[in-house]
């Protein structure tokens, strides 16, 4: 190869005369082509033959076509897939499944390529299990190629070189190679072959004759660094600078950051219009296609089978990419809220909850279509699967009714024109596969396919270190140059012995090679533009970073930056102070009767705001799915069991009269009935069976406790009353009323949690249900009110009674410790106090009193989801730690 040439002028002349330029990638080919066009236009050309500028790989493939050798050529991705199959076949037998097959395949494929390119082999090196595994896979891979009569694209450069040598291919007269920072052996050998048949081969570097003015600058952290570069670019743009390059050493990690910060600084208004407008800079890396909403929805839809979790059901109910998403939108949202209230984690796809069919018929039809789509064990070709997927998607109305925006439209195009063909391309290698395998492949390729929205070839280009090869800029910023990245740590291929890699000087084999490479890269970058800024972040989180020592020789300084145009920076200083407003009361209630029962009073007692928000504004959060049976369901099951039991049994005497077996039998029967009512067929499922056992044991334990009481007759169950509390009228229902021997009545409420008697007797009436119900009774007829705490190992009554011995371990209220603490003398006084308290609460609620004043944070706020609305955190931070 003759000495590298740098002049673009001479390159253009040669191109005009039909010379061939081979570039490291398509990006450089495109860039050179447009520079050539510009040169042509400048020099007055009107029409010209398009110059021959091609990526090296494209050219090789073309040559293969000319040789008629392209038909059996295994494409890069098909070859990779073959490696995966080979590896999977072996890994299937091992104890622990290989975690990342595709990534292993990539490394193994690379190892294979290295061996071929460097003409190396492993003999003579001591081998580890990893090396041996690779050799096995490689043998299997070569064998598979042979059996399928595929030619391995790794061997292509060799074959082209051979064809050139023996005259089957006519060489071009002159070839330039451009943009190879680290020319691979295949290129070197190809060039030798070309020169061997009389072709003139020249390397073209695209560098300036002398290095530009270089500056080194430090940034606080990665974000600050990107922002400085963006503001620098903005200033240059304001001055109409034509070609601005920003090279990011770790672009892969910083892609999103770069995209966002550049958008903030160059086009802040596009943040707000939400249109996803064209960017004002060109970023060389795209995002994975799979991340786009439209594609995610499609992949998720195709992935459904068997059971559907509440989370994904909810996801589809709100997805805009399904049929009927607009027409049924609001109903779907409501339907989701209802489903969530059931808190179940998942549903069978074939028998979705009945509510769906009734409220959202279109959606229900979609589920039905999805339910029938699963493929079972049937094996088909990838093409057939993709066609089937397409049909299924069409059947569920994908991609929805909303008119597609430009980004969505482009994504759909990539899905169809790049993704699906990429899957089908693997068909010859894959053979027939099951549906899941086909879907996995689709999903994976969707993750690997990058989506780059169309952007104009604007003046600002953001690229990675290697992509910048061969490009020339007027201004260049290179960032991320810490001593950990630049030079990069060695990254030898794990499937080849390291000494072998070092001996062959394979890429990334050792630190020495990386250092040489980094130095060359630095020199190339500093000669790519008349002014170059090198920058490095000082910190990453808590970890301090140091600049690469390779840039220490450049003068330190800060380049000129434009003022930040990011919205938050613009807002700085121009935002008016916030108003403050004391707003503790809503309008009075129009009607005296309120829906919501005693819960209103309870909420009012716990926190007035809560009562207002819940019962006036209907503020409700969405529920979350819970594993197994949630506490509310279990509580209501127990209530039903005890209710049914007492309906059948009637009084304590009947309870005691039952023999052990009869009692157990009756309990078991009741439990079975209750479960059947509640769960239907599912009552036979293991979880329900276990719940049945639990209920039986718990009911039994409770009833044993009831046996020890003074005799009683169960007088009422689930009775409803309408009660007046001050200005407010509420409906209430009570679990049970017992009649005691003297004719006194005992009001009972079951609770499965721990109970605090203070909630009945405290200053604020936190447990108003019993008092509300008691409010209708007189002090003479009412013998007591009690909460029945039904808990394993802790079954007891808590409450207050008019006299001793009415309830186990509860003495007469008058003169009791509780009475003393509450400052009351006797039973009638307590009833009076309750009436006052209830009237007060009712009054507060009717007035609209809505102060954010929780009784005690751990009592009220701990079980309240309204914090975002009441803004309690703004006023005080509570302390949840409880001490024993």
């Amino acid at each position: 190869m003759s000495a590298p040439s740098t002049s673009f002028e001479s390159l253009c002349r040669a191109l005009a005369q039909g010379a061939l330029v081979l570039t490291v990638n398509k990006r450089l080919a495109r860039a050179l082509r447009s520079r050539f066009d510009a040169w042509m236009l400048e020099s007055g050309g009107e029409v010209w033959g398009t110059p021959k500028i091609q990526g090296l790989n494209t050219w090789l493939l073309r040559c293969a076509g000319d040789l008629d050798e392209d038909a059996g050529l295994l494409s890069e991705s098909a070859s990779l897939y073959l490696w995966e199959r080979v590896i999977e076949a072996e890994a299937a037998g091992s104890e622990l499944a290989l975690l990342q097959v595709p990534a292993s395949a990539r490394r193994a494929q690379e190892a294979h390529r290295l061996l071929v390119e460097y003409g190396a082999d492993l003999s003579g090196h001591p081998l580890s299990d990893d090396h041996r595994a690779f050799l096995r896979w490689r043998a299997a891979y070569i064998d598979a190629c042979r059996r399928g009569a595929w030619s391995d694209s790794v061997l292509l450069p060799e074959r082209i070189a051979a064809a050139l040598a023996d005259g089957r291919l006519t060489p071009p007269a002159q070839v330039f190679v451009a943009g190879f920072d680290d020319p691979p052996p295949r290129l070197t050998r190809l060039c030798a072959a070309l020169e061997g048949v009389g072709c003139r081969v020249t390397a073209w570097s695209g560098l300036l004759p002398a290095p530009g003015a270089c500056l080194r600058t430090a940034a606080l952290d990665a974000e600050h660094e990107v922002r400085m570069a963006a503001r620098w670019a903005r200033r240059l743009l304001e001055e109409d600078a034509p070609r601005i390059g920003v090279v990011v050493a770790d672009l892969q990690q910083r892609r999103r950051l770069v995209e966002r910060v550049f958008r903030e600084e160059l086009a802040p208004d596009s943040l707000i219009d939400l249109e996803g407008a064209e960017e004002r800079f060109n970023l060389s890396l795209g995002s994975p296609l799979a991340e786009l909403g439209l594609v995610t929805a499609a992949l998720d839809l195709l992935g459904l089978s068997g059971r559907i979790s509440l989370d994904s059901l909810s996801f589809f109910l709100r997805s805009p990419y399904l049929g009927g998403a607009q027409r049924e939108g609001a109903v779907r949202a409501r339907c989701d809220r209802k489903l969530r209230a059931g808190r179940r984690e998942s549903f069978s796809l074939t028998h979705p909850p009945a509510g769906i069919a009734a409220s959202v018929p279109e959606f229900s039809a979609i589920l039905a279509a999805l339910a029938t789509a699963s493929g079972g064990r049937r094996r088909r070709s990838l093409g057939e699967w993709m066609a089937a997927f397409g049909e299924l998607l069409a059947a569920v109305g994908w991609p929805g009714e909303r008119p597609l925006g430009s980004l969505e439209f482009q994504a759909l195009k990539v899905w169809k024109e790049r993704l699906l063909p990429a899957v089908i391309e693997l068909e010859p290698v894959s053979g027939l596969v099951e549906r899941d395998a086909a879907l996995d492949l689709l999903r994976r390729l969707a993750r690997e396919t990058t989506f780059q929205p169309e952007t104009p070839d604007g003046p600002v280009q953001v690229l990675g270190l290697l992509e910048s090869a061969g490009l020339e800029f007027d201004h260049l910023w290179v960032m991320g140059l810490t001593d950990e990245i630049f030079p990069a740590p060695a990254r030898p291929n794990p499937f080849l012995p390291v000494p072998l890699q070092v001996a062959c000087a394979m890429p990334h084999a050792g630190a020495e090679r990386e250092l040489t490479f980094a130095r060359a890269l630095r020199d190339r970058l500093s000669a790519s533009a008349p002014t170059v800024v090198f920058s490095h972040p000082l910190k990453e989180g808590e970890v301090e970073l140091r600049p690469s020592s390779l840039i220490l020789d450049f003068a330190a300084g800060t380049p000129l930056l434009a003022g930040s145009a990011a919205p938050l920076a613009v807002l700085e200083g121009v935002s008016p102070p916030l108003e403050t407003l004391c707003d503790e009361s809503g309008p009075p209630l129009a009607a005296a009767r309120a829906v919501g029962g005693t819960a209103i009073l309870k909420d009012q007692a716990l926190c007035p705001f809560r009562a207002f928000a819940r019962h006036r504004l209907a503020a409700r959060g969405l529920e979350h799915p819970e594993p197994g049976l949630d506490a509310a369901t279990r509580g209501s099951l127990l209530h039903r069991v005890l209710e049914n039991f007492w309906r059948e049994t009637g009084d304590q005497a009947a309870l005691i009269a039952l023999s052990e077996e009869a009692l157990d039998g009756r309990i078991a029967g009741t439990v079975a009935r209750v479960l059947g009512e509640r769960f239907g067929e599912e009552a036979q499922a293991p979880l329900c069976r276990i719940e049945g056992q639990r209920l039986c044991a718990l009911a039994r334990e409770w009833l044993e406790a009831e046996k020890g009481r003074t005799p009683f007759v169960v007088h009422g169950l689930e009775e409803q009353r309408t009660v007046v509390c001050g200005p407010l009228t509420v409906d209430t229902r009570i679990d049970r009323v017992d009649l005691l021997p003297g004719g006194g009545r005992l009001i009972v409420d079951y609770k499965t949690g721990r109970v605090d008697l203070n909630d009945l007797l405290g200053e604020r009436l936190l447990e108003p249900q019993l008092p509300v119900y008691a409010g209708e009774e007189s002090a003479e007829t009412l013998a007591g009110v009690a909460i029945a705490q039904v808990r394993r190992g802790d079954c007891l009554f808590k409450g207050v009674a008019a006299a001793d011995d009415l309830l186990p371990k509860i003495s007469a209220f008058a003169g009791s410790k509780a009475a003393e603490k509450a400052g009351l003398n006797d039973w009638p006084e307590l009833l009076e106090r309750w009436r006052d308290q209830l009237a007060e609460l009712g009054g507060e609620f009717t007035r609209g009193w809505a102060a954010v004043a929780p009784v005690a944070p751990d009592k009220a706020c701990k079980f309240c989801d309204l914090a975002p609305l009441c803004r309690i955190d703004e006023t005080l931070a509570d302390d949840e730690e409880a001490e024993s």
Partner: protein
Amino acid sequence: MSAPADAQARLRAIDPERSFIVQAPAGSGKTELLIQRYLRLLATVRRPDEILAITFTRKAAGEMRGRLLRALREALDPAPESAHQRQTWELARAALARDARQGWNLLDNPSLLAIQTIDSFNAALTRRMPWISRFGAMPAIAEDPFSLYREAARRVTGRLDQGGAGSAETALLLEHLDNRMDTLQEMLVAMLARRDQWLRHLGRVKSERQRELLERSLADFVGNRLSAIKALLPADCRDELLELGRYAAGQLDAEARPLCRCAGLTEFPGTAAAALPDWLALADLLLTSTGTFRLRLDKNGGFPAGKGEAAARKTQMLELLERLRAVVGLERALAELRRLPDMRYPDGQWQVLQALVELLPLAAAELWLVFRQEGQVDFAAVALQALAALGGADDPSELLLRLDARLSHILVDEFQDTSYLQYYLLGHLTSGWQPGDGRTLFVVGDPMQSIYLFREAEVGLFLRARARGLAAVPLERIDLCANFRSQQGIVDWVNAVFAGLFPAEEDEALGGVVYAPSAAVHEMLPGPACAVHPFALRDDAAEAERVADLAEQALAEDAGGTVAVLVRARTHLTGILRVFSARGLRFSARDIDPLERRPAVRDLLALTRALLHPADRLSWLSVLRAPWCGLTLADLEALCGGDGGRLVPELLEDGDRLAALSADGRRRLERVGAILRRARARHGALPLRQLVEGAWLALGGGACCDGAARKDTARVFALMEECDHGGDLLSLDALDEGLARLFAAPDSGADGRLQVMTIHKSKGLEFDTVILPGLGRGPAGGDRHLLRWLEHPDCGLLLAPVPALDGYARDATYEAIGRLEAAKQDLESLRLLYVAATRAKSRLHLLGHAAPDKEGVPRPLAGSLLGRLWPVLGLHFVFSAAEAADQEGEPAARTPPTIRRLPADWRLPLLPSLSLPAVVRARQASGHGDQESRLELFTGWEAETARHVGTLCHLYLERIAREGLERWTPERIAGEASAGQRRLARLGVPAAELAEGWNKVAAALLGALAAPRGRWILGAREGAACELELSGRINGELLHAAVDRTFVAEGIRWIVDYKIVACQGGREAFLAGQIERYRPQLVNYVALMSRYDGAHPVRAALYFPLFDGWRELD
């Protein structure tokens, strides 16, 4: 500064030939020591990566690397003055000389220095062993592994319904746990998070025979305790004890009590576990039922009242009791006897244990599959696989290959916080090392500062390595004692206090560390070094005020000094931070305030949920109440009151409702409503962050935030990027779950002089003044685990499953292990105090409360740090009654809270986007309009195949023209069938359509070859070219074009464009339609060509080889 007292030891520690274990108490400057040794080693090795340094955190690794590089760089400068610095400088010079000789280029290539955390070392190991480690390639480390654990737990318990492995076990456990599926899953999650500890044990517990083994451990444990008691009992009491026991037993009526057994005791019980009942008999003799030495003796205890022998025996017993009471620890040890585990597992418990032994590995296996699916793992997985990979190497040469480098020297920092897993890893790394073979191990740490029990740190391992070496490597002990950090007053105080509190003897099992005193290098400062501030009752507000006073005072006294408030638990800071804020004290707090509770964060979450879910009424209401909108309660009621059925977005469109609002409310809603509507319409089309951030900015979210709130919201936005699932969330709660593990950003306006943090976070830091509040507060409640286990150095593995959740069950084994854990915890809390106290350079303040008990004597809360210090600090807690009463404060009167909001007329300022210069951009001359390609996208699959068929036809037509018509016979085309189909497949045509596709290609080619028109086009001609690519400017526009075929015939330059479509409908109409469709393209071609070939008139046409169609452009 003169040489420190331990200068000799420090010199010895640099010796590159020997292995050491260094105890480096707080402030002893161990990092410098590590650097010096590293430099010294560098001068001896062949390659720098023969040295491996392992640090505890990434930050520490970064610091060490930084200091090492600085030392190397400074070695290029002239020698420094001070002798101490000079030593480092000389070591660095020697290292540099080595560097130059070996050509390492360390300064340019610092990645050669292997300074890593154990996690990154493990990762590097597995990266080198893709197959052996079964990772394939290093997977990403999950940000939130708990979501993965949850998924695995869900899957494994999901087997309940499916039958098969794990189903019966799940059922059994559910019954055991009161059918609490949520509890079971949570417990499994907790277990999965710690599987690096139990996984290796479970293999041992598979069979019934193992039951024996485990029960033997239990017996050994009992025996171990009995030996301890026996050692405590004064030998000269034994006979008397036996005698009195026999007497007392004889006095009892035939009652079934442990004491009765004394009757048959002829000799003093041994320490085998079987002797436990005898011991219990003795305990019954000595202790009351509550476990204290008997003070009174009566008939029930075997000492009836009476004269003569009865009286004598009684007196004798009382005297004996008196003597035994004086033996420290005896009472507790005897009482503990009653709570020792059973030596057999009750059958029910054994079943549960077996179910766990089955189920837990299944859960771990499910976890692996979850990892596989997500491509993410946790740190434990990396550590486990790295260990397995190293452990699997049977001979040293294989190990060497796997390590891929000769490790000659290993340095480990913070060795006191080593876990079993890391300990084993070090064992593997050093296997085969011989003393004197040039390889050395150097571990540094301070057992007194081991405070990561909750992360499995086992300080006992430090003690073990010091006593017996690490694996095969014997370690020489070096103790540092110089303290370069604190003034003498502090050092003296710490020495005085902790020497008495730390245990007198080392205890590997529980992590008992003996105190090692320090010697101050800095002189005593005037004034008291340490002050105790006692409170009689818990009063967080009063304590907080005092903390603020102390902080203000310290800041004022020393203008450059730093002050740190250190607490055991984050929650202890709540009150203090409130007072700081109220007083305008600015502070930096790291990882203290949970992010999810910040109002700005809540608002942002509500906005996100509202945009994603129209029926999330709470979020919608919150959005309308948030500062950017700030609707009053009255307006909210007017809008949404009494209508829980309709969705808020629907109500926002309801004119009547809007009309009922106040004028101010209407104005606010108009602005906000429009933005919400616009954003909702873009749901899914943009990444979640972009959607929400755009709406948030437009609403004025940014204008409602101060600096700290902006940082907080920035973290939420970052989290949104992480959780994004196609512009939405996979689970609506995903964000909230992610937030739960984040903390608010520190105040950016603080100068860093006042800091608040947990004691754990303060490790390795130093401050002029340290304030330790809340010492009187109790510890957080511990979790119940499915399984408790303990690796006891003397007794082996102790294992017990959780007792049934039925309100009754107790399990002695489970509780006994729990008590051991508690004992470890107790020792650790002392070390925590040591760490806290040694952060101080000049002053230390201790604050805490001890409430009076029934007798009015102040007593610290059990488990509080103050309780640990009580023997020393108790004397400070003397309160007069008045003082105590004084401290009972009145609750403050309520100040009505206010809400904050933007003014109603707020508008977002103009955001200055750049307009860019129009760039010349080449267009494909064949490009369709946007509209047309949009339509094409919705045509079916066939269109794709047709496209590929067209592509292949073009390729073949080009070849035919290039090679010459005569070489292409119908036979040859038939012979191309297989290659042609493969080519179609490569283009992406599905197998099922290959044959048909090829037929079409062949038909086109044959058609062209057969027809005179086709032969005319393809034949050899003047100026002919295929796929001729032209560029040029037409009407000011840059065009690129590829012409299928061009030639000159009869003086005319022809341009032919192939179209591979069949004729649909009438030929004439079809051709007319086609030429119209492609007219713009052909016109462009003609324009380009006529400038390219000025010599001939240019004409263009479409050619349809499938039906020999031809239509010229007119």
